[in-house]
């Protein structure tokens, strides 16, 4: 089926012409009264205006957050968990609205938002609601009369800067643990994709006490920077790229506050020879694993954008992989049969094309795709790219940099050691994939890979309760797991003596 475009007859989503910031439990106009146009990559045309905030708006959001932090931090875990579960319930009741909006705002296929983005985001709130109920401090009996209590306390007010590739899901990854831990949040959505988070705030914002959740929209330089630089935040969480990651760490160092960063990767996807041993489901699963580079148009920090194929099966496997990839082409993101949608923005499209250009200049062989696709009609101005396969070697720039498009760079390896050597020859270490029928080999590979997550005989699964985060230049911290609560909490140690007698030192 095909969902109607927003604001047309029969549409699931009808946007307002203009969206303000969500501060202190209500929508508030930006202090300077300015707005920016929000474009859908599906057609390349603007569809609403969003607040173009500045430091005054950030301060206002911080005022609201600080006003709320005392009470929220002391709200019983059972009550905080109840609210998170309620948020999940309301999202579930509005899943089509949010899924269609996410598709329209970001360009990703509604097939994915319905099956992945939304269910995962919903589950994330439930997961952290559950973690919160099971969370305990600890105590240590140091001697007969002395006990060390360790109690978890929220940090207070935290800043979160959200990327544009999974706008609502990445917000959920950050919000759920922060709110569960009892923090108040000032969140800045990406300026390319603010719309769904604002629709979401309209639906669930008032389930939280005013000031607990605050959303300030605008450009990085105008709104993100004053937020990240503020001396009134206790932590900043950011997903994005390395230069901004370093800049945010520099700002955080000025305030001596912690950061969590997720800065991307260049994830290897390793196919050992035995994947072709039988013509069975597993062979198809491995080929599907190869084709996953096109998931979310390649705009995934863990895009399996380097495929390393055992030389013993190189030609045969690659032929099958190319055939499979050619079966997919970009289409209308609002059609539930479409697997490949639009790139999120024009500049992203241009960047992908610039990488296809450098790939060719470096002598990589183009095996599929390699061009922008014009869908014609209404969608002609949208930002579509054909799934692209390059063959080359690991020193090429298309093997070293995250293109963030539906582009995979393929090379071969001779033996286990070379597979690991090539895979680890990267500045980054976020994700990796290993495909083999030999679980001894799978385990050895998984441990040898310098990556925070090694998908083993699977790829692109993002369940809550499996830690996600990077080695090397891919970042700091682990999301989507209970351990993220620790990144949003302080430990209070009460060191208590129950001995009525003096120590006798003085």
């Amino acid at each position, binding site marked *: 089926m095909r969902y109607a475009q927003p604001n047309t007859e029969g549409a699931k989503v009808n946007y307002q012409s203009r969206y303000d910031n969500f501060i202190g439990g209500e929508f508030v106009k930006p202090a300077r009264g300015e707005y920016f146009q929000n474009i859908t990559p599906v057609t390349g045309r603007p569809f609403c205006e969003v607040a173009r905030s500045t430091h005054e708006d950030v301060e206002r959001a911080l005022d609201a957050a600080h006003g709320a932090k005392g009470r929220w931090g002391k709200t019983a875990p059972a009550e905080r968990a109840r609210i998170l579960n309620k948020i999940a319930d309301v999202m579930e009741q509005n899943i089509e609205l949010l899924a269609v909006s996410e598709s329209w705002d970001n360009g990703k296929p509604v097939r994915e938002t319905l099956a992945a983005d939304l269910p995962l985001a919903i589950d994330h709130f439930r997961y952290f609601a559950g973690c919160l109920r099971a969370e305990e401090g600890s105590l240590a009996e140091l001697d007969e009369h002395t006990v060390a209590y360790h109690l978890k306390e929220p940090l207070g007010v935290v800043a979160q800067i959200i990327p544009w590739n999974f706008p609502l899901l990445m917000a959920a990854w950050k919000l759920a643990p922060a709110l569960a831990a009892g923090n108040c949040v000032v969140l800045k959505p990406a300026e390319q994709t603010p719309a769904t988070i604002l629709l979401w705030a309209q639906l669930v914002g008032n389930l939280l006490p005013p000031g607990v959740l605050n959303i300030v929209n605008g*450009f*990085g330089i105008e709104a993100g920077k004053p937020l990240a630089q503020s001396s009134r935040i206790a932590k900043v969480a950011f997903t994005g790229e*390395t230069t901004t990651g370093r800049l945010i760490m520099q700002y955080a160092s000025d305030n001596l506050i912690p950061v969590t960063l997720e800065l991307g990767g260049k994830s290897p996807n390793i196919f050992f020879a035995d994947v072709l041993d039988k013509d069975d489901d597993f062979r198809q699963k491995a080929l599907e694993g190869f084709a996953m580079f096109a998931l979310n148009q390649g705009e995934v920090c863990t895009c399996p954008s380097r495929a390393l194929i055992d030389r013993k099966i190189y030609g045969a496997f690659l032929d099958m992989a190319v055939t499979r990839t050619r079966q997919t082409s970009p289409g209308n993101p609002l059609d539930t049969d479409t697997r490949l949608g639009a790139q999120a923005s024009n*500049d992203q499209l241009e960047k992908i094309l610039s990488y296809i250009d*450098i790939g060719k200049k470096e002598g990589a062989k183009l095996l599929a795709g390699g061009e922008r696709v014009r869908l014609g009609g209404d969608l002609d101005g949208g930002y579509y790219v054909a799934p692209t396969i390059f063959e080359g070697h690991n020193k090429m720039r298309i093997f070293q940099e995250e293109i963030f498009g539906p582009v995979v760079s393929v090379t071969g390896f001779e033996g286990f050691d070379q597979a690991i050597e090539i895979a680890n020859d990267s*500045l980054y270490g976020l994700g990796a994939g290993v495909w083999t029928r030999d679980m001894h080999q799978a385990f050895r590979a998984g441990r040898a890979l310098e990556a925070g997550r090694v998908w083993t005989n699977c790829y692109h699964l993002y369940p809550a309760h499996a830690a996600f985060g990077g080695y090397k230049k891919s970042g700091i911290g682990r999301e989507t797991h209970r351990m993220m609560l620790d990144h949003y909490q302080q430990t209070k140690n009460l060191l208590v003596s129950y001995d009525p007698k003096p120590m006798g030192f003085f």
Partner: protein
Amino acid sequence: MSPPPVAATPAALEWVRRLSARHGPLMFHQSGGCCDGSSPMCYPLGEFRVGPRDVLLGEIEGSPYYIDADQFERWKHTRLTLDVVPGRGAGFSLEAPEGVRFLIRSDLCEIP
């Protein structure tokens, strides 16, 4: 003589001048990683504290252009040209609110 490792298109130069007139002296830092990774970031000079492991690639209209040393190792066989395209970008780069985004185009360095 080999060409400089970083150059700019006329359109990019025009934007560098325009931003410089508004924000004062500028600097660039080449990003890596995801989202807007691999894009150049443009800041007021000194906004980004350059470390001992940043390499000065060159200057654009007098604005220094830096890249992380490890990244430079993997990029040094290519020559970069700063260009500009309509767009928005993310991060804290100065041009984003203007509706344009700096972009890097690359060529192979000639092997001497």
